[in-house]
Each structure stands twice: as C-alpha cells, then as structure tokens.
C-alpha cells in the first residue's frame, strides 16, 4: 500500500515535470529557438530549493503547504492505470470537492503576501475557476448519470468494455465541451490570465522566492498531471498499464501545447463570456440528452 502510494507520487511528479520541460522545449522550437533542455524545470527546482527565501508570516507558509497537500491528496483519488489508492472513500464527488483545496491554499498564502499584484491574481484565479467550473460540473454530472455510479474506477471499468466514452454517441457533446474547457483548466495560453507575467507580475506568485517558488512549481506540475489524468480516465478510458496511460496523456498534452504557443491571452471578461457561452451550452445539451435517454 505505502509502496503504491509512493510510486504514484513519483510517477506524477516525473510526468508533470517532464510535461513542463516538454512544453518549454516545444514553445521554443515553434518560435524557431533552440530552447532549454527537457530537464530545465528540474534544474530550476534544484536552484530554487538551494536559495534562501523570504516569508510574510505563518499564513504565507500554511497556504502554500495546504495547496500542495491538496494536489497530492487529489492524486490519490485519481486512478493511474488500473490501481487507485483511495477507491472506496467518496469517488468523483470527493474529487470535485478536493479540487477546491489547492486554489484555496494558494489564495490564502498569496493573500497574506499583501501585494496588489497577488490580490488581482487571486481574484482572476477564482473567477477563472468559477468560469470553467460551470461546464465541468455539467460534464461530470452527465458522466455520473450515464454510468450510474459516482466512483471513478467504476466508470473506467464500464469504459473498458463499452469503449471510450468519447466515442459513445450520447456523451459526444460533453466530450467536446470538455475538450473546449481543457485549456482553461490547465491554465495555458488562451486562458493563462492568472500567471500573466507582463500584466500582474506573475499574479499569485509575486512574493514567492526560493523554496516557495519551487513548491509552487511542483504544485503546478501536479496540477497539470491531475487535469490530464482526469480527462484521460473519464473520456479516453484510462488504460490498463501505466505506459499506455502515459501515451494518451502525452497526446492530449501536446495538442494543448500547440494551442498554447499560438494563442494570445484572453482578458478575464472575455474568458468568462466564452466559457459560459459555448462549452456551457454544449455541456447542458449533453446532460439533457443523457437525462432524456435515461427517462426512455
């Protein structure tokens, strides 16, 4: 049990950091630059951890550790390949709830940093979360009603024999909606409003130095891993062995990065308007279809 726990954490960290390194390399190559080595995020973390850092008090530390703990906890609930550690306590409902732990943690810690850039950053982060939560909740509810279970590994088992839920016709609408909001959940370019380095001096992490920045980077890596793993588990029928699972995640992430490099950044109103218009309507239609199908 403890070994499996440790293994998921290490795999998640390695894949997360690999994805970040890959994204920087791909962005560079698309911009005709040579770009940093793939392990650049690791080098950054080593450097940051060896730097002295400055803190604004107890809550500043507590919030950061809470956000990282929230991401780590979320990892235990999401099945990697076929084994999922916390399978019997709460299922998808608890995942929805634990998803709010990490943003709340960073919000608390950067609020204590008493810097207006950080406050503007958090208000954008929470607004973004509210914006993409509307379609995301609808999609998760469609899945729960369609598969008639609230445990995520149950959904995977059903997908194993009925084929990917992306290919199942009634779930197509919500699948497309999920793809539309994936950049927002990942926080990549068209929706990279929270960590905008030019406008609000990298938003919530304006006062992070040294090891705080390293922890924020690790949390970002976990967050990327979780979002993509959730999508793969729910819609691409999370694979039996981890290798196959990793391949699917890679495909999804590369598509995301291609979008990331070529898009400018939305303003927060445009992002909310967009997210509440098209993906939300699609998700609503998907839910309606599933409910009607269920009633017949």
């Amino acid at each position, binding site marked *: 049990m403890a070994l499996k726990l440790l293994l998921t954490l290490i795999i998640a960290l390695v894949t997360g950091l690999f994805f970040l390194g890959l994204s920087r390399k791909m962005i560079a190559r698309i911009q005709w630059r040579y770009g940093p080595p793939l392990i650049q995020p690791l080098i950054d973390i080593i450097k940051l*951890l*060896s730097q*002295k*850092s*400055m*803190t*604004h*008090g107890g*809550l500043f*530390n507590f919030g*950061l*550790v809470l956000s*990282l*703990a929230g991401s*780590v*906890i979320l990892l*235990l609930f999401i099945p990697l390949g076929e084994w999922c550690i*916390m399978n*019997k*306590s*709460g*299922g998808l*409902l*608890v995942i*929805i*709830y634990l998803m*709010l*732990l990490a943003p*709340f943690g960073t919000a*608390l810690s950067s*609020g*204590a*940093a*008493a*810097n*207006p*850039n950080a*406050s*503007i950053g*958090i*208000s954008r982060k929470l*607004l973004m*979360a*509210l914006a993409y*939560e509307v379609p995301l*909740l609808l999609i998760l*509810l*469609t899945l729960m009603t369609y598969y008639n*279970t*609230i*445990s995520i590994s149950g959904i995977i088992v059903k997908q194993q024999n009925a084929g990917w839920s992306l290919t199942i016709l009634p779930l197509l609408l919500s699948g497309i909606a999920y793809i539309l909001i994936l950049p927002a959940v990942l926080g990549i370019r068209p929706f990279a409003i929270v960590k905008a380095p030019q406008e609000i*001096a990298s938003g919530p992490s304006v006062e992070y130095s*040294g*090891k705080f920045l390293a922890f924020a980077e690790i949390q970002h890596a976990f967050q990327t891993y979780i979002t993509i793993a959730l999508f793969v588990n729910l819609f691409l029928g999370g694979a039996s062995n981890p290798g196959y699972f990793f391949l699917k995640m890679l495909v999804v992430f590369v598509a995301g990065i291609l979008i990331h490099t070529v898009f400018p950044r939305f*303003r*927060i109103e445009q992002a*909310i308007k967009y997210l509440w218009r098209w993906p939300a309507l699609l998700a609503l239609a998907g*839910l309606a279809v599933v*409910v009607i199908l*269920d009633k017949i």
Partner: protein
Amino acid sequence: MNLVYILAVAFTASLLVYLSGKISKTLRNFLAVLVSLGMAASVIYLYNHSFAIHLSTGFPDFPLVLRINTLAWFFALIISVVGVLTVIFSLQYIKNKKRTDFYFLMLLLVNVSMLGIIFSGDLLSFYIFWEIMSWSTFLLISYNRGAAIAAGMKYIIMSLAGSAAILTGILSLYTCFGTLIIAELAGNLSLTSPAYTLFIFLLFFTGFGIKNAVWPFHSWLPPAHSEAPSPFSALLSGTLIKIGTYGLIIFFYVILGMKKFIGLKYGFFNLQYMLCWIGAFTIVFPTFIALLQNDAKRLLAWHSIGQMGYIILGIAFGTSTGVAGGIFHIFNHAAFKGLLFLSVGAVEYRTNGVRDLNSLGGLLKKMPVTFCGALIGACGIIGMPLTNGFVSKWLIYKTLIVEKYPFLAFAALLGTWGTILSLYKFLHNIFLGQLPEKYKNIKKAPFTMQFPMLVFSLIIITCGVLPGIPLKIINRIITSFGLKALDISIWGVISETGALNTVNIFFALAGAFFIIWLIFKLWPKETKIAQADNYAAGAAVPRDKYNYTVNFYNPLYRMISPCLRDFIDEFYIRLAKITRSLCNSIKLVYNGDTGYYIMYIILFMTALIFIQIKWSIW
C-alpha cells in the same frame, strides 16, 4: 424536571435579568449567562426522554401540550448552545452601548420563546410562542436605531403576514379535525380531499417559508441581518431561521405524514418536486448576489438564504440520506454561520463599527484568533473536507445524483463554487492584504468574544472529522419519520453506491500536510520580512494605497449585476406603494371631522327608508 418548570423559570429569570440591570451591570451579566447556561443544561439533561405533559387551560378542548422527542431535543440543543454562546459574546460587545438591559431581556426572550416553540406539542401554544419570538426579534433588529428601524419594519410586516397564514391554517385544521394536538393531527390529514391539502400546504408553506427566508419570501433577511447587532444576527441566522424549517418539518413529516408528502400531487403539479426546485433556486441566486456585496454582514446574510436552500432541498427530497443531509445541515449551518457573524462582530467591535469590505484589510496580524475562527467558519460553509459542512453537503449531493436528478445537483454544486468565491472575498478583504494606517494599534478581541468562536470551531471540526456522533441522533429522527435509517459508522456513511469515509480523508490530508510541512522545513530557513518590504517594481510601497480590495470581483460584477436585480424585492415595494395609495384614497372618506360622519349616517338612513318604502322588504 419537566418542561413547564424550564419555560416558567426561564421567562421569570429573563425579567429578573432586566431588573437586575438597574442594580449593577456585572450582576446582570452574570445572571444572563446563568440563565442561558441553565437552559442549555436542562436541555442536555433531557437527552433521551420523550414524554408529553397536558396542561388544562381554562377552555375545555384547548389543552396546552408540552412534549419532547428526538427532533425537538435536536433543535433545542442547537438553540440553547447558540444562545449561550451569543449571550457570552454580547457581554463585551454591548458594554459601551445604551439600553443594554433591554438588549439582554430581548435576547433571553427570543431564546426562551424558541425553546417554547420546540417544546410545544399543540398548535395553539406553538402559535403563542411563535408570536413572542416574532415581536422580540423585531425589537432586537431595530435595536441600534437609524436604518435598523426600516429593516425591522420590513421584517415585522412579512412575519405578520406569515403568522396570519399560520393562524388561518391552524383554525382551518381545528374546524376540520376538532383537535389541535399535533400527535392526533398526525395521520388524518391524508384522508381529506387534495384541494384541502393544497390549501393547507400553501398556507403553512408561506407562513414557515417567510421565517425560513425561502426564495420568494427572502427579501426581509439581508437588511434585517446587516442592521441587527452582530451577536443577535448570529442568533438570528443561526437558529431563528431554523425554527421556520422546524415548522416545515413538523408540517411535512408529522401532520402531512411521510407517505402522503412523497408523491404530493395536485392535478398536474408535483408539489414535492416543485419544492426541490425552489430550494435549488434559493441556493444559486442569493450566492451570486452575495458574491457582489461590499458589506460583510450583508454578504453573510445573503449566504444564510443560500444555505437555507440546501436545507430545503435536503428536506423536500424525501429520501433518507436527503432528509438526513438536510437536518444535519441545519446543525452545521447554525455552527459556521454563527461563527462567521461573531467574527464580523469582533472586527466591528475593535474597528468601532467599520464592516465595509473595501476599507478593511490586514487584520490577520492584529486579530489572529478571530481570523482562525473566520477561516474555519469559511471552510465549514464552503464544505471543505474535514469540516461538518462537507458531510452534510456530500449526503445531499449523493442522493441527488443517485436518484437521477442531475440538474438539481448542478444547481447545488454551482452554489458551492459561488460560496467559495464570496467567502474568500470576505476573508481577503478583512484579514489579508495590507494593514491600513488607522488600524495600526488595534488590540486582539477580548476573551469573552474569543471563547464562543473557539467553541464553534471545535464543533465544526469534531463533527467534520467524526460525523458519526450527530448522525446517530439524526438516524433516530429519521426513523421517527418512518424513513429507513442510514447505516453509519463513527466516521462516515457506508453504502454500496459510494461510501464516505471522513477519517480516511482526514488521515490522507493530515499525512500529506505533515510530510510536506517536514519537507518544507528541511530546506534553508526563510527569513521573515515586514509588510512594507514588498515588490513594487523598485518603487517605494505607497502607504495605504497599496491594497487592492475595492470591489474584488469587478469583471464578474460588470457582467452579471444587471441580471441579478432582486425582482421579488421590487415587487414587494411596488405592492407596498399600491396599498399606501389605496389607504390615502380611503382617507378622503374618513377625513376625521365629525360633520362628515353625521352626514353619512343621515344619508344611509334615508337610503334605508327609501328602500323600505319602495320594495317593503320587511
């Protein structure tokens, strides 16, 4: 030690408190705390008893019945605990205000009348105590003059309308069944015609809905909560709204009966399903209004309406987990809403009356205990795992999803995210950010204010981590309604379609937090820096202008504020205008000088004589 003694002693004691106030303030304070503690102790003593006492009043068939069962005991516990803590909190809060004796008298009266409602076994005593509660609340809401009087007026008008509806309901029940005792009324409402049940349903729903601040009758709550003194608004939103829910529960499950209520159909409408939708709408609409408020207490008031939506949704849903979730949420909401209002009260007490979210900030360093209380309260109301809010909301969500009502579940989940945003705004604008100059030398909240907050936080955390304790009592309540009991363990719910295991989550979260905290401490020690030493692109940090809290979610405000106008409130105000103009027109006839009245009499007499001559009716 039966109920009559409790109520009698409590009433006389509250008068005694008022009189002792004339002698010496400390004696009055001591007595007030003693009375409320006595009430709480007696309620706890009555743990497992369930008996009824018939008191014969003058009239033969109107006996005053006082009874207690697990449901009554559950509500009595909430009322007395919140009552004790608010009395302790207001000792310091009221110290330098005027008319303090009057305040304590009213506070104790409200507490006692609420207990009276819970203990009353028949509808007559229920109604008497209901009236005592209503007008004492009105006097307390309009306690600090000015805008509070208008808020109180709005409250008293709506609650009078509610009491009128309840009174007509009680009378029609009496004429129809000849008895007022709830136990006897229990079964026989189901025999009558559906039209009559709809009539009774509408009457009681409006009556209790107004006190419960359900969506169509919610508009009295925001002004009432924000104008009332903070400890009382904690009591108001902690327990007073729950009395409306108690009334609804009594009506749905006891008078109407469980089987009749589930499929309560009237022609095409399924009333129960409609009630669920009203609950769902009450969750979403006020939470998004709360998001855009700039006054701390008004923000919390709108959240009270939102959370009541969860309770209505839970109770109206009818399945055992749904009702259990709804009732458990009553207990939780009393705990964290009381805590949040007390923390605003402490901040208001220290910054003498400032609760505007745009001008506060940075009080975390000056009032750490109040901040911890507010943080735990916020986690509770959001339903963060490890707090009690999480368990009750989880129960409600599970039934909604398992019973295949996804749109209701979506409304509830959306309400949660709205709560997160607005509660973070509440925490951020008051406690985080830069400390303004004028609050530099604020002291900590006094101990009598911190103690209630600590007790509430303890309740939230223990019920969050070990929900088995309250769920055991709630199981007994559900079985008393005839529903199937939940199979619960000390740390959560065991069921095949998806169990909840809070201790599992607790150990996971505590373990992860501890490990990461260790790793965090492993690296070079971080140095603490002052608040002014902040990144400002190389420039000096401008004093007092370096704090971004003014209208925190402005982009969202610009987008959704036009469609969040409170149509119901405007409808009521228009209604009030129409009645006033109507009354003015009547004033033309009754304009007060007797000459006109004599003329009217003479005219009327002539008319009568004329009719008699013409058609000689008699």
